[in-house]
């Protein structure tokens, strides 16, 4: 029987020592950073440290998947149709794992900016940075961009970042949220000293009561996370616009390089609708 008693402060100190005296900030950074490297780098590599880097693959847009699609005649035709054959994509990420032109850190963005939150549809998995709706919106509005899109997740990690690290954003003008698909809840896992930003569905928490109620609990968290974002936006006098999707005709959106995510046309549509709503408000 484990007879340890857990005092909160004592426990925090213990954990801090266990994670090499890392703080909440460090833990959040590692969770976000490793999540952003899925499909491109070995997130278990012992020398992996959160620092700005350029990768060429992300999540479903992995080299392995691309090769498999290239070798399948039907999928190869689709890759050709959407212009992805032999086309390189650069994912420039900063030390938080956020996609950012030139791998710029958020605090190095001096000008007025638009802040975007969402999942891979905001991050731009399978697309060049310049094709994503956050980039297009920022250009239309003549603003810098702080893209907090977090592939595979809901709004937990990036709203947490906004709440605790949002002071790094110097001059936010608008905050735009594209709500991720339902049922996503972040679960940070520590394995062999490495913190991984996972989601519940990828963990070993397979209790039927957990699986069956994932959507309900994720829904509750979404409400809380959006409230987190709303309060932050209000504190910085930046109007918030929340989108659950973009209107358009299915089948006309095109496909990203992973042949899973929506393509460039969808992002252009999204940009038009966001800019229109901002103008109308």
């Amino acid at each position, binding site marked *: *029987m*484990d*007879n*340890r*008693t*857990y*005092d*909160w*402060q004592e*426990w925090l100190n213990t*954990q801090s020592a266990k994670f090499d005296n890392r703080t*909440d900030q460090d*833990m959040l950074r590692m969770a976000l950073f490793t999540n952003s490297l899925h499909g491109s780098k070995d997130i278990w590599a012992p020398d992996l440290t959160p620092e700005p880097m350029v990768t060429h693959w992300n999540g479903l847009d992995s080299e392995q998947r691309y090769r498999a699609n290239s070798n399948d005649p039907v999928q190869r035709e689709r890759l050709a149709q959407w212009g992805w054959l032999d086309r390189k994509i650069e994912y420039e990420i900063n030390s938080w794992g956020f996609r950012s032109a030139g791998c710029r850190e958020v605090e190095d963005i001096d000008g007025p900016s638009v802040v975007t939150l969402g999942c891979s549809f905001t991050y731009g998995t399978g697309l060049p940075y310049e094709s994503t709706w956050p980039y297009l919106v920022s250009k239309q509005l003549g603003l810098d961009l702080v893209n907090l899109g977090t592939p595979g997740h809901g709004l*937990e990690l990036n*709203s*947490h970042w906004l*709440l*605790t690290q949002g002071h790094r954003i110097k001059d936010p003008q608008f905050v735009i949220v594209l*709500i991720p*698909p*339902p*049922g996503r809840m972040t*679960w*940070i*896992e*520590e*394995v062999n000293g490495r*913190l991984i930003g996972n989601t519940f569905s990828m963990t070993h*928490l397979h*209790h039927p*009561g*957990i*699986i*069956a*109620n*994932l*959507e*309900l*609990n994720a*829904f*509750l968290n*979404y*409400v*809380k996370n*959006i*409230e*987190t974002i*709303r*309060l*932050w*936006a*209000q*504190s910085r006098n930046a*109007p*918030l616009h*929340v989108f*659950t*999707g973009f209107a358009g005709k299915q089948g006309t959106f095109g496909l990203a390089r992973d042949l899973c995510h929506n393509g460039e046309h969808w992002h252009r549509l999204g940009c038009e609708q966001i800019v229109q709503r901002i103008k*109308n*408000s």
Partner: protein
Amino acid sequence: MELYPTPSDYTQYLQSTLNSHQNHGAATAEFIPLSHALSSGVWFNNIALSDIDPSINPMPVRMNWCGSDNRTEYDQNLRDPVQHARLQQEGWIDNPIVYELNREGWRSEGCREYDIPEPSLIVLGCSFTYGTGLHLHQTWGHKVSSQLGLTLVNLGMPGHSLDLNTAWLMMNQQRIAQPQAVIICETPPTRISWLLGDIALPNAYAHTLLRLAGAKGTVSNYDTSTPSWLIDNIKLNSAVNYYKNRCLVEQWAKLLGIKFLHFNSSGVSAKTLARDLAHYGEDWHSTIAGKVLEQLGQKENT
């Protein structure tokens, strides 16, 4: 158009998103509206082990027992000479407690619903805030609010941390018209709330992941059959959750321009015990109330 959507606005946003994803597996959220699931989860948690029939639907209730302060354990203590003597010493023989809960499960004087137009004090925490084993007037929240002449909004939730009460506060903030201060009494680690719904039943129940994951024992002691990696990761995620919940409440208070306090009670000792002989007694609550009032800049008089 509103510059900042209200919680009900984006609840609608999210509900419509969920409705458009009906084939995504579990459909509980579509059958149980979120606000109902939340209040139902709180209510059933807060009547646990009481004398209320758990098969009824949530409603305002008055009950004589609750959680660790339950009839079975009390009777056992009465039969044990040592524990009987402690109960006598603490004044818990023939001293009935009435827990008044509103329809959302919060402990509330007169079972009053939390639609509070007058100036109020909001407190969040676990059973030490709820007041398990104590009369409401003996709890730190009540002492502070009485001293300040404010109505108490007690969002203490036994066995849980800040997940559900923070969610309730964010979703229902407009119902508390004039909060003057919000205070969090730190809760023990490892607690991550999890709502259990069942599409065949109208109600949801609140559990913690630790229990669902199969951990047995108390907060302090875990059965060795529970994998240590699971315990460690629950602790890790509960810490991350806790920090975020705390910061969210603090941010909310800051925007409203009201006072915010978060305190850890680890240095406060107790000489007396609550009726369950497990929670601290009234002297601990008086000390806490004194410290809170001091930090709020009020003269101690509890």
